[in-house]
């Protein structure tokens, strides 16, 4: 992130831009980009405190315990600070964890235990595997090959990135890592097509926003695409009593995400940011040739790269075949343990690829996640989240309403709710349990509403603060907040439409949703 931010101040050479080994996930706070952001940071700190005090001192709600009320107050404070960033997000997480204890919302064990959660382990191990890809230059090779192969025309160059993100999404669960790894290539190709930080054009907007949407949306292809997906799967299993396997998720998630992104690839160019004829061809003479030279200079696949392919292949194989593990091995190797096996091989002395010091593990992201989980779990265990969404859905009388209407309401709320939070995990921890409860209360199978809703978790594309990749991409200055909002809203709306059509057809044929117009008994 720091490397990307620095790139804004001096013009880097093509060689520098392609030096992905130097890209690390820095814990440094991003500098405020505009006077509005500076004021947000300045007022965010007292704003968060005032909101905390307001909720904390409100008269007790009828169905709310004191712990739930103080939990909501702590979480509101953290949310304001995460959005306005008076502190780095991980410091806010640490403050939140302390507040949860001293307000007696959660006990020390419950707060500390989050660092041992499955999702934290998966994040950590995924970063070790991602470091292996960067060190062996396999990620760079894949990216360069795609650009050389498809980058002759603007539309094809954009499509090449769609394919690149599609390939990387199941391999690297961390969206920020995927973003950091591919951003240099985006900048290079945008430059080749005449879009720079000082002279952004329609191609640059399409390039950055399509990639941003792809990084987020394509994470919903697999249940290991993001840690929030795994949390949703766990909630569906624990609360809904229904198991979602890797292939179950993929069968519903992949068509929706891929179709949406292909449509956005078209609509971005034809509707939102139309490219002038001169923007549709490479504008830097020899630009693509330079990329080709880079690719050719890499030579044939090295031994380390082949080893990386084999290790990733093994992990991916275990992720994809979890449904058969019990039959084959007599034990289920869950997603974090498959990654753990990969990490063991990667870090193995002499035979491995990395030393521990070479693994780029962003502990600040894990601490941020831990705080978010602690807050989300506190909202859940105290009943505050359920109370909140009960108030939200309680206003709508969905009893006796056809499934399709309920489904559309749930999907829309889930999809657009990302505008109000910065953490997919927190949103998942709040929304999915309530959707499961709602499904049970209305007489529908929990999976019929919760799984399609879980597919919306990763669609955090509306604002530059909606997710980490959003913040990183926004630092390129190739598009405005308005451009981001326009593109994000079209993506989300398209997603809602496709999910609704899927519920009436594909999901129903798979036995996930009942008939669209069915009324619960």
């Amino acid at each position, binding site marked *: 992130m720091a490397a990307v931010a620095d790139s804004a101040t001096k013009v880097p050479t093509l060689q520098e831009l392609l030096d992905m080994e130097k890209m690390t996930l820095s814990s440094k706070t991003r500098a*405020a980009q505009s*006077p509005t952001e*500076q*004021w947000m*940071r*300045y007022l965010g*700190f*007292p704003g968060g*405190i*005032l909101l*905390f*005090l307001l909720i*904390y*001192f409100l008269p*007790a709600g*009828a*169905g*709310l*315990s*004191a*712990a739930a009320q103080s939990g909501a107050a702590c979480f509101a404070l953290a949310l304001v600070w995460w959005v306005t960033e*008076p502190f780095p997000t991980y410091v806010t997480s640490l403050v939140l964890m302390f507040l949860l204890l001293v307000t*007696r919302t959660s006990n020390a064990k419950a707060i500390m235990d989050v660092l041992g959660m499955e999702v934290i382990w998966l994040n950590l191990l995924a970063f070790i595997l991602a470091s292996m890809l960067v060190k062996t230059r396999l990620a760079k090779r894949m990216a360069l090959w795609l650009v050389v192969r498809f980058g002759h025309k603007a539309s094809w160059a954009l499509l090449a990135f769609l394919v690149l993100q599609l390939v990387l999404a199941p391999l690297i669960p961390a969206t920020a890592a995927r973003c950091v790894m591919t951003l240099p290539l985006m900048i290079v190709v945008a430059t080749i097509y005449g879009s720079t930080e000082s002279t952004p054009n329609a191609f640059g907007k399409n390039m950055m926003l399509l990639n941003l949407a792809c990084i987020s949306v394509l994470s919903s292809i697999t249940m290991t695409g993001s840690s929030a997906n795994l949390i949703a799967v766990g909630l569906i299993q624990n609360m*809904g*009593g229904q198991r979602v396997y890797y292939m179950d998720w993929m069968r519903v998630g992949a068509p929706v995400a891929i179709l949406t992104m292909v449509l956005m690839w078209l609509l971005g160019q034809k509707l939102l940011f139309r490219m002038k004829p001169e923007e549709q061809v490479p504008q830097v003479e020899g630009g693509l040739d330079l990329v080709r030279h880079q690719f050719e200079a890499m030579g044939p696949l090295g031994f380390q790269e082949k080893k990386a392919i084999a290790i990733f292949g093994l992990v991916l194989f275990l992720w994809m075949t979890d449904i058969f593990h019990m039959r084959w091995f007599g034990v289920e190797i869950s997603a974090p343990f498959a990654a753990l096996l990969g990490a063991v091989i990667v870090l193995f002395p002499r035979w491995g690829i990395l030393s521990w010091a070479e693994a780029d593990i962003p502990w600040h992201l894990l601490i941020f996640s831990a705080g978010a989980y602690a807050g989300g779990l506190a909202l859940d265990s*105290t*009943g505050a989240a*359920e109370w909140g969404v009960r108030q939200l859905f309680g206003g709508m009388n969905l009893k006796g309403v056809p499934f399709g209407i309920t489904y559309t309401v749930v999907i829309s709320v889930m999809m657009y709710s990302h505008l109000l939070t910065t953490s997919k995990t927190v949103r998942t921890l709040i929304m999915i349990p309530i959707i499961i*409860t709602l499904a*049970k*209360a209305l007489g529908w199978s929990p999976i019929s509403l919760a799984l399609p809703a879980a597919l919306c978790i990763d669609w955090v594309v509306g604002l530059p603060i909606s997710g980490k990749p959003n913040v990183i991409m926004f630092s390129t200055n190739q598009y405005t907040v308005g451009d981001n909002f326009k593109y994000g809203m079209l993506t989300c709306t398209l997603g809602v439409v496709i999910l609704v059509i899927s519920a009436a057809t594909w999901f129903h044929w798979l036995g996930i949703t009942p008939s669209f117009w069915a009324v619960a008994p």
Partner: protein
Amino acid sequence: MKTLRLLALLLMSTGLALAADLQNYTIRLQAQRDGSGQGLATLQVKDLAAGTLSLPLGFAAAEELHLEGAPAGVRLEASPHNGMTALKLQIPQELPGRTTLRWSFRLKQVFQNTQPKPGEKSTLPAGSRLFRHAFVNTQEDVLGAYRLEFLLPEGFMFQTIREQLPKLAKSEVEPRVRLDKLDGCQSATLQCSKLMQGDGLSMVLEVVPVRKSWAWLVAGLTLAGLYLYYFRDLVAAPERR
């Protein structure tokens, strides 16, 4: 022959179990500021046979037991059993159809004694109290539904639900314990349906006085003020930074 006799006994016992269709057993317990509690139990039964109906109350040392509503001739007795109050309802004749039986009782102390012994570490802050209720269906009939509505006196609220058992079954929608407001008081309702003999349910609630420490307000506003003063350079004009 022995097997047949056992089978016959089993059938007879099943027949006895079905003799009383206990549909709903609800207890409303209003806690008082002094820690005592006033309870009102309502039992809805269908086709009640003549004889003695034994029921657990789920509280120890219930006092001032009064039958508030029942068909003529029905008598109520209480006796301690395994540390709890066991009730015996004498039904003089068969009561066909649906019958509602109602009785009241008083508890001297509804909250647990949480005072630490000398030298022991306190596990609750000052002013907090614990309410624990456990109910086990000790009689042989299936109990259709059991509810305990626990109402707090004014000036108190629930800090947290410390325990709620058993875990919800997949088919259950309602939470085991729901916090709400009944008759203007904050209430907690523990509920479970289809309780077989030996099945039980329980909840532990922490109760605190409704008062918030003003230290939060003082500390929060002081921190906010200090931040606004010492971090004002964040929004200062570039030349003044």
